[in-house]
């Protein structure tokens, strides 16, 4: 019985892994965060935050600790006023540590109407794929 359970579980897990590999609608980098709380409404492209780029330069604790970023896409209520005020992204994106906010298009670089999400997350791939251009996803983060 025990062995049968193990085999069944392994097969399930293996099919899930294979499904993840094959059924992958958009293929942007794992961990990229799309932020579209206010962007679409403001006529801007949504923000794509590349986790991979930032973690080469900073350990997790710098942002998810010192800077107070909650571990949730769309869960921080970030807007440009706060950034200009030196909060969140603005702690570095001040023209000193990293590029300043005049470079709108470098952050606001996503496909319009892409919902707020952690792109390519396991649950997104297995349960609820989110395609670009489908901003009406029910779980797309808080609305403004």
């Amino acid at each position, binding site marked *: 019985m025990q062995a049968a359970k193990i085999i069944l579980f392994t097969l399930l897990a293996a099919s899930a892994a294979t499904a993840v590999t094959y059924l992958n609608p958009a293929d942007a980098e794992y961990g990229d965060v799309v932020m579209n709380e206010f962007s679409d409404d403001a006529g801007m492209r949504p923000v794509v935050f590349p986790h991979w780029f930032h973690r080469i330069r900073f350990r997790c604790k710098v942002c998810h600790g010192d800077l107070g970023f909650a571990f949730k896409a769309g869960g921080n209520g970030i807007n440009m006023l706060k950034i200009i005020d030196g909060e969140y992204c603005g702690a570095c994106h001040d023209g000193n540590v990293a590029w300043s906010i005049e470079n709108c298009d*470098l952050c606001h670089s996503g496909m319009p109407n892409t919902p707020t999400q952690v792109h390519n997350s396991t649950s997104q791939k297995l349960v609820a794929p989110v395609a*670009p251009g489908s901003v009406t996803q029910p779980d797309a983060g808080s609305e403004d």
Partner: protein
Amino acid sequence: MRQKPALVLLTTLLLTLAAGIAAGNWKTLRNDQLHDPSNPSLRVLQDPEEALALLPPDTAGNMVNWVTALQRGIISPRSSLREDREHEILDDDVLMLDTMPLPYVRFPHRPHSEWMGCETCHEKLFVSVAGANAINMGKILDGQYCGVCHGAVAFPLTECNRCHNTDSSTVSGARPGGTLP
């Protein structure tokens, strides 16, 4: 007992297959279907392959073994914006025994505390009391506990055996949530 080698072989084969299909398959920003290719500033941004191809390879997530990259000093991410002060590294392993038919989970504090501070996880995400966190895969898939990072930015949840990594026969006298040196 007889099934175990076959099981390990099957799992390894399937994981290798999945890894082989995906390895090194970094999309350019222009073609990743997430960035807007009509954005003229896109060419200023770095494509993932340019940076990630230089780092220790892996078979899932970003296809980069971030822990090895940090431990070997291939990357030197800062610990703080103000000064690069050392932060506390905790070098013990926590055993989780309530894993149904799967191998036990041996959670290594060291690589986690190299990336994060104690306060990143404790006490909001995990209470620091042995066995006091009612963790299960449902909650993890729902983005709680380990699932806050694993499945979102740290290696994905389809990598079962990276966490379920300890055969019960190799551990004796362990208690749930107990630590190992």
